[in-house]
């Protein structure tokens, strides 16, 4: 363990890859993250599971996890997915605007922070590659989980393959254009 930590500190050289290129994981790599993550007991995370349950139900019931709906979207044969994503973005935008405008805090009184993200080539190349995968499998990462629990067990292979893809990206990250 100790040696692992030593290597980590030794590797810390400033450069583009030390900056956070990740939209979803806000961690060590950003230089000035002073997030006051309040220490909370594990069961406090159950509320996120409840939101997840609602999300999973919507995924299935609105057929967002259907390969057919994704194919129709990319062939402009149906408005459904555009309606779903468009409405979600509008509702999300209004919510974020309200939170910023009235400086609304979390239920535990923590300030809500939004960090601006910088452009890098990953959004173009990676975005294109993800688009290919999305049209092939008919699923983005969230729906994969709902498909599996809805009984399509073969999707476990797709999920494992996606984990492998993530790992391979991590392995070659420093050699890829960003």
């Amino acid at each position: 363990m100790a040696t692992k930590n030593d290597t980590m500190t030794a590797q810390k050289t400033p450069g583009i890859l030390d900056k956070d290129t990740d939209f979803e994981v806000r961690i060590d790599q950003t230089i000035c993250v002073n997030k006051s993550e309040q220490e909370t007991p594990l069961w406090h995370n159950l509320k996120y599971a409840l939101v997840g349950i609602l999300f999973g139900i919507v995924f299935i019931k609105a057929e967002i996890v259907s390969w057919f709906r994704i194919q129709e979207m990319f062939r402009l044969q149906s408005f459904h997915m555009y309606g779903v994503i468009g409405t979600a973005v509008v509702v999300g935008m209004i919510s974020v605007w309200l939170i910023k405008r009235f400086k609304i805090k979390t239920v535990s009184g923590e300030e809500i922070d939004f960090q601006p993200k910088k452009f890098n080539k990953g959004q173009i190349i990676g975005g294109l590659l993800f688009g290919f995968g999305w049209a092939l499998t008919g699923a983005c990462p969230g729906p994969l989980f709902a498909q599996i629990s809805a009984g399509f067990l073969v999707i476990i292979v797709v999920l494992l393959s996606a984990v492998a893809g993530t790992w391979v990206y991590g392995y070659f990250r420093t050699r890829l254009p960003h």
Partner: protein
Amino acid sequence: METILDTIRQPWPWYVAGALIGLIVPALLLMGNKHFGISANLRHACATFFPAGIKFFQYDWKKELWNLFFVVGILIGGFIAATWIANPNPVVVDPRLMEELAGYGITDHETLLPKEIFSWEALLTVRGFVMLVLGGFLVGFGTRYAGGCTSGHAIMGLSNLQLPSLVATIMFMVGGFIMANLLLPLIMRL
């Protein structure tokens, strides 16, 4: 009572689904300053099980446990919807798509995924292998390279008016259009 249940069992319209998904953004922010995103879980899986000394996977994934709970919730939700309030009818598919798919030998639309592609037998065919294994790989590689997926970029990123997210979202769509219209017809004939 029965009519309400019947209504719930029918496929939900886009505006209901869109509004509920949009509300996840403020729900997560208000619950604990969490930013909506799912593909990060694939990274956490790597960090947990096979970090292999790769710097990208060296971080305290335990701080991101909320996201794991969120995904477990999706699993439970998917099970609930498919078990108790499933649509009893076949999936309604655009006739133009049905016609195209019939040309590739795909006629099943009983459930959300056609069994001619999404089954263990199909996985052993060249076409099934390319679609499931290569497709899954591209989903995992692409989302992490782009720094997020449909939820992290298209919904959370756009909600926060982030230009990089707009670029990513446009590229997701460009990739999807190219694959579905130009490459998939070739792959389907494999």
